[in-house]
């Protein structure tokens, strides 16, 4: 089973500072890491390979330094990595990114399954995975939390819904985006790191693929960021107090009434 995993290098955001004027993140001095949600796709990809054979190829579109993310994925156990990098891709939105990644996947070819993280922690859109499926005309399964069965031409998966699970049988090749429940990412080993260092990462630039120039980068992106605003939090909360024991029952009644009015109970 040959698997392709598109990943994204994102800024490490747990200690990030915001520019109060522009409302954007201060990127200076911020470490770049593999999108944490992509780690689950990498892990399940490696597990599928271990069980069913084949190989796992990680790809990423980004600046040259995104090579580090590919090397980390190889250190975890992926076989190959391909860097898709070109100045022309700068400023791509989800649509344009999916277009380039889709073309890159076509170029790589010979795949049975594409695995993607649910969404990236920086843009938070969750669109690139599904967009690639649409562009390549592949069956799409989103929010996949378990893989039950793999045969030579189909895959049975569980899809996480708000109120339960949905069981899907999908043909291969197809694309699934995965949620955290699907796996526990492994840590890279020393041997893995050494292997990653020795692995050459082929570079795909715009001219290596059959791309239409006007669909690339900022100019090729239909999305326009018009304004960035911080949402105002308006949750005030309701406090019901019981000053002494006598008021306890009355207060509990009030609480029950309140919860009923909100249709919580």
């Amino acid at each position, binding site marked *: 089973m040959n698997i392709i995993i598109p990943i994204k290098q994102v800024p*490490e955001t747990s200690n990030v500072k915001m520019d109060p004027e522009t409302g954007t993140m201060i990127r200076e001095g911020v470490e770049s890491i*593999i999108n944490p949600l992509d780690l689950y796709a990498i892990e399940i990809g490696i597990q599928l390979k271990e069980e069913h054979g084949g190989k796992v190829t990680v790809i990423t579109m980004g600046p040259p330094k995104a090579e580090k993310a590919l090397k980390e994925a190889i250190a975890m156990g992926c076989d190959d990595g391909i860097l898709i990098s070109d100045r022309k891709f700068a400023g791509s939105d989800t649509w344009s990114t999916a277009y380039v990644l889709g073309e890159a996947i076509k170029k790589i070819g010979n795949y049975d399954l594409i695995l993607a993280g649910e969404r990236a922690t920086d843009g938070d859109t969750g669109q690139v995975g599904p967009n690639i499926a649409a562009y390549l005309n592949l069956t799409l399964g989103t929010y996949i939390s378990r893989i039950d069965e793999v045969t030579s031409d189909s895959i049975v998966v569980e899809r996480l819904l708000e109120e339960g699970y949905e069981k899907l049988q999908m043909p291969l090749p197809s694309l699934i985006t995965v949620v955290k429940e699907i796996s526990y990412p*492994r840590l890279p*080993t020393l*041997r893995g*790191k050494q292997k990653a260092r020795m692995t050459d990462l082929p570079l795909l630039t715009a001219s290596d693929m059959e791309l239409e120039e006007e669909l690339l980068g900022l100019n090729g992106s239909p999305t326009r960021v018009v304004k960035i605003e911080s949402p105002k939090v308006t949750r005030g909360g309701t406090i019901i107090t019981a000053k002494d024991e006598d008021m306890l029952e009355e207060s509990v009644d009030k609480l029950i009434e309140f919860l009923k009015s909100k249709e919580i109970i």
Partner: protein
Amino acid sequence: MKYNPITKDILEELVEILGAKNVIVDEEKMENYSHDETSEEYAHMPEVVITPKSADQISKVMKLANKHLVPVTPRGAGSGLSGGAIPVFGGILLSIEKMNRVLEVDYDNMMIVVEPGLVTNEINGIVDEKGLFYAGYPMSLLTCYIGGNIAENAGGGKAIKYGVTGRYVMGLEVVTPTGEIVEMGGKNIKDVTGYDLKRLMIGSEGTLGVITKAIIKLSPKPKFATDLLVLFNDAESAIRMVPKIISEGRIVPTSIEFMDKLSVHTTCDYLNEHLPYQKAGSMLLIEVDGTVEENVNLDAETIGELCLENNAIEVYVADNYTTQERVWSVRRNIAEAFMVYSPEQSLEDIVVPIANIAKLMPEIEKISKKYDIKMPSYGHAGDGNLHTTLVKNPNTTIEEWHEIEEKALQELYNIVYELGGKLSGEHGIGLKRKKYMKDYVSEAEIMLMKKIKKAFDPNNIMNPGKIID
């Protein structure tokens, strides 16, 4: 020693010195100042809590306390682990919380001058932009105060490379128990002008004076760090790596943290960590840091290879935020993981010469079996400092536990001393370990300590009841 109670007159005098806002007698508020991070059994209420803002105020308070013979217990952030900040005789609890200013950042000399109530980690926030950091920080750096660190000579996970607090204290301003304000040390790298009183203050646990100002040395901040999490079959193989890494690898790592089987299994289970820890008999967490990324990676690789040559089951490499947080969280959550099993614990701080840690491990296991208690051992293998913890068996009563605790501790300390070790590496004696001092520290040494104490504090009012009686 008989101390006088805090009278209304004394309170009035305190208000006059400090202002009403800085004199607290409200029971509920004072409760927070009655304990540190040791078990509740050591707690004791103060009679009054004061929050002075200057050395001058503290000097006046000390003179007042001598006049009326009332005890004064200085306190930092209360994150201590020896009961050192507990006012065992009541009296005045002197909290340095309002003395938290940065007085001077001296980049030319790479030093920072601070008040004692500054949260230790804030130093790093200030000097980070110049590529500097404070290297002496302990594990609790996000909450503890620099003054408390100095008073305890706090250590931490990076002592093997960077040493402990004392190495970075260049100078101090101290209010002595009799109320003199004394400057000790300064910004000079070399200074043998008389006795090194500053060194004497460092680690004196607030029994010789109140630190009111500190000149702290800053160091160039390493740009890169890589961590190795190494699984071993048994404790001995892990411990034997410590001298090998340094002598054969010719590398001084930033940390070598050790976790025994019980610590690894309990904590991984608690964190739902899916590393293949089930087969591990112990774990080492090794960090290397430096300025050139390639060199740091090379050092990590050398150490990793050495481990693999010496019985390591697997070597994991963490060189980014995601993986580093993950491997360190195993180490950081040990104490919490055992809280789930039983909150009644005695967190120890034994230290032995590094070559003897391997001999200590089977002995700890014997004690644990004999008394039917859990005794996870983890800590700073790089410097021989282990936080062996006695965890109460939930099936025993609290009375039985206290009996077991005392006997097991005595046996543990006996072995530690047979191996050339000491009672405490970085937490201090304070209240908690005082009763064991006379059994393990020579009479001549204790006599000298008593004479020093007497010279500084003739009326024995400064943090009495700590270290020695």
